């Protein structure tokens, strides 16, 4: 049901919407008491000559001067209804209540739809939280068994690569180590090896690192700190002049990765 315009009313006989000024319903042809036209001041421009109140009461169908009088239901007819007349007021209240009920029903529908949508979204988020990642905890820590094993294995492997070399195969050993380093660690490694290299070749040094254990101190998907126990054997010279030393070290190895493999990012000796 559409809202009544100010110049409209509802026919008391057939309930159709008709012009307020009508004296006969255009739908059911019932004779109607025309509504009183007042408030000519509301249309000062279109009604330059305010009509006397008595005239407007008796001639309620009077069109404003600018409108053709003969037009029975002109759409452009200016307001001529006084909403305060008893008849129109009753109709307005009824239709206002009907409108309100309508708006409320529509609002209920809209809210219900929104609630269902929001509930669905919450449900999906919850499901994802439960099922989503069993390998990574919400705080970012890596808990998946396979992922953690990969960290442990790579930390051991990369530590051995970095700390093992043989003067006979030094260039090759260094290439193997360099393949899995972050850019910053690579720089550090290069400058250390540049210093170590002459002595290694001159004294025929073989360094062998054997990782005894590796254990995760802290790990996310992209960064892991690992406690590595390593036994390093340093052999200098060959034949009868051979000289061997064993050192047992504790290292904190930091690994980093983007999308692919873990790379050596930092290596610190403890104690």
């Amino acid at each position: 049901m559409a809202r009544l315009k100010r110049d409209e009313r509802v026919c008391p006989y057939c309930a159709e919407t008709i012009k307020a000024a009508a004296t006969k319903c255009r739908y059911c042809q019932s004779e109607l008491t025309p509504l009183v036209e007042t408030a000519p001041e509301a249309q000062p421009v279109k009604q330059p000559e305010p009509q006397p109140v008595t005239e407007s009461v008796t001639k309620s169908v009077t069109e404003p001067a600018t409108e053709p009088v003969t037009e029975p239901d002109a759409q452009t007819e200016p307001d001529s209804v006084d909403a305060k007349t008893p008849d129109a007021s009753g109709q307005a209240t009824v239709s206002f209540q009907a409108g309100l009920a309508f708006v409320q029903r529509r609002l209920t529908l809209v809210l219900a739809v929104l609630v269902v949508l929001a509930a669905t979204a919450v449900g999906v988020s919850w499901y994802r939280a439960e099922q989503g990642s069993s390998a990574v905890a919400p705080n970012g820590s890596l808990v998946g068994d396979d992922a953690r094993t990969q960290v442990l294995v790579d930390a051991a492997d990369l530590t051995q690569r970095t700390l093992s070399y043989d003067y006979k195969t030094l260039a090759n050993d260094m290439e193997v180590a360099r393949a899995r380093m972050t850019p910053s660690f690579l720089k550090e490694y290069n400058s250390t090896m540049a210093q170590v290299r002459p002595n290694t070749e001159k004294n025929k040094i073989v360094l062998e690192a054997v990782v005894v254990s590796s254990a995760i101190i802290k790990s996310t998907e992209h960064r892991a700190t690992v406690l590595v126990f390593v036994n390093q054997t340093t052999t200098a010279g060959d034949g009868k002049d051979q000289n061997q030393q064993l050192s047992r070290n504790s290292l904190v190895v930091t690994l980093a990765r983007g999308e692919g493999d873990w790379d050596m990012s930092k290596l610190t000796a403890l104690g």
Partner: protein
Amino acid sequence: MINIALAVILVALLGWLVLFAVRGAVAAPGSTPAETQAREHSEIGRAARAEALAFLTIDHTKMDQLTAQVLDGATGDFKNQYQASLKALKDSATSQESISTGRVDEVGLSEVDADSATVFVAAGSKVKNKGTKGEVEDRSWRIKLTMAKEGSRWLVSQLEFVG
């Protein structure tokens, strides 16, 4: 009336969604398996650190208290062995006037199961006794702990020094 109820529910749901967007899976009620696992890991680490520290701390003036602390975090083989050597340990601490201040540098978790875990600890202790002639000696240790879950607590069931 129903509209007000619906509006309240809607606002609550939207608030919850915002929580999901901001905090992620933490917004889910209860805890996810990953969350539980992460908590378990930190609990294992905490227990291992405390027991390693207790084990490395010796003070000949209060051995009863210190050894009771070690036994509290111990179970199985480790507990039996420690208990068996308790008298010898106390006697030697007293006769040597030993003082050892322990420290734990790092604790790392290796294999972790639902009720057992292997933990490695890089630790150290500053030792002073008659043998060191009053000097403080700094020693560092590599320790492997085997942990077992008993009830809600993680206890050390085996302690080995790594060679």
